[in-house]
């Protein structure tokens, strides 16, 4: 079978090993290409291999298997090339430039585009500030002194500066207050409208399934379930394993 033209991203039978331990054992997933962006979510428990999956797709980790991006096979994904081709990862740990200002952090997101000859970083910067007005207020502040929510905004904004077609978010809600989480998810939906596709890794399964079009459940290195997000939302197994507990906690709160 050829790389299907309608897919933005297609991963087939991906294996990743840390030494002898196989963290991913043949993962396959796809993101359809459309006029609107697609939100595809991968949910699963701690240590299931979600971060490993995103890192391998981005070319941060060596992997076996096939990765097609925008219709092209990437035999050995390499980060610089993936960024150039329109893929961007907001990692779990954010990885901001702590000693540099918010604005410098954002501008650096456009580095690869700048090297390719684009000079549209000022416009991108205005768009990011429009999306996150709070960052505009804090643009001279050192990134290391920001609150957790602001940091996540910088991390997402920085990735958007590269004008990606596929944005991969690794647990964007991790450690954030509910109000900020809602804000982040609002942005995710807004980005889809603008044609950005999103691969969303989340522990907050409820919120993720709420916004996603399609969803995968990953457990100990393998996909155990997939389907339209609304179907998974109503699937008894998913409710029991990933949504039930959350409901309980919310009632307590």
């Amino acid at each position: 079978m050829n790389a299907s033209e309608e897919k933005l991203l297609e991963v087939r039978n991906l294996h990743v090993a840390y030494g002898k331990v196989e963290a991913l054992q043949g993962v396959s997933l796809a993101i359809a290409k459309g006029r609107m962006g697609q939100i595809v979510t991968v949910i699963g428990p701690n240590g299931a291999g979600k971060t490993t999956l995103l890192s391998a797709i981005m070319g941060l980790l060596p992997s076996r298997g096939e990765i097609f991006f925008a219709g092209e096979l990437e035999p050995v994904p390499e980060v610089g090339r993936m960024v150039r081709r329109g893929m961007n990862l907001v990692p779990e740990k954010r990885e901001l430039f702590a000693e540099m200002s918010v604005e410098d952090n954002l501008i650096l997101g456009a580095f690869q585009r700048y090297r390719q000859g684009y000079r549209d970083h000022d416009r991108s910067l205005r768009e990011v500030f429009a999306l996150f007005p709070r960052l505009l207020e804090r643009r001279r502040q050192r990134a290391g002194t920001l609150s957790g929510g602001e940091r996540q905004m910088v991390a997402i904004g920085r990735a958007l500066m590269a004008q990606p077609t596929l944005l991969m978010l690794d647990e964007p809600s991790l450690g954030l207050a509910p109000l900020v989480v809602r804000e982040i998810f609002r942005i995710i939906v807004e980005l889809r409208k603008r044609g950005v596709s999103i691969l969303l890794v989340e522990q907050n399964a409820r919120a993720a399934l709420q916004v996603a079009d399609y969803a995968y459940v990953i457990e100990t290195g393998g996909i155990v379930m997939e389907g339209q997000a609304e179907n998974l939302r109503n699937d008894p197994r998913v409710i029991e394993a990933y949504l039930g507990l959350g409901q309980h906690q919310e009632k307590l709160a």
Partner: protein
Amino acid sequence: MDIDLPIALILGQDGIINGAIYALLALAILLVFTVTRVLMIPQGEFVAFGALTMAALQAGQPARLVWLLAALAVAEAIADLIVLRTRRQGAQVTFSALLVKLAYPFVLAALLYNLPTATLPMPVQAMFTLAIIVPMGPQIYRLFFQPIASAPSLILLIAAIAVDVSLVGVSLFVFGPESASTAPFSEASFEFGSVNVSSQALWVVGSALALIVALWLFFSHTLHGKALRAAAVNRTGATLMGISPVFAGKASFLLATLLGALSGILIAPITPISFDSGFVISLKGFVGAIIGGLISYPLAAAGALAVGLIEAFAAFWASSYKEVIVFTLIIPFLLWRSLTRHTLEEEE
């Protein structure tokens, strides 16, 4: 021994001149260390290369150092070809870029061997000197440090020592054992009260200041400068922005060789330099960098200036112990740093 004001002023002048050079080297060492974790022990060799190449050009000798550049270019081309064969599309090397890089040293050699270098204007001689030396920085990174970029710091240190020793050997072979100095940029000198200040001294201090300002502008106002800082602050974050560690490593080595070679050109009219001068010069840059805790640029520059001054006064009071005194300086700073160590480790 008593010291009166005129002597103090003269010593102070010497100290500031050397200190300005050490400051440039300390900044280069710091940059390379923060970006690549390599302790740039060969930094001083580029100073020696700069001074000796300039002297050779002024003496009308062909600058034989260009053959080291050629050898490195050939080695780099072979390494790149291997990558090109074994790797995929999307590798950063392209065939035409490879040919240009390979041709460059030979074109340069042809020019150097056919031009009457002794009679060229001094700025042109300086340009040729830089043209020979500066590309070596990225080449050396590519060949010796890029393949072991993620190795433990100790391995990087050993590689740096090996590179340094090899460069000293090449230096002896290329330039011979005699020390050399060059003509001053201009003959003028000025009287400030009782002190005679040579124009070369002003050149050194002025150029060092200008370079420091230029570096500051580069790092704070250009995207490439910020990218280099970003690579030093957070390697993973930088990689995700498409700022590859290879790009950052080569760029930092390029800047370091540029600062080294320029320092050599600046200091050569004042201090005779020989093939083996580089190591001690590196060490003084290191003392400055260590005073800056290997993280702070302003502290490193200030520390290097202090090294220059202390060295000048030590030379007057106890000239045979000059180096000992300067290097003993490190100890209190290392102690101080080890006491505040935890902050350093957090930065890592």
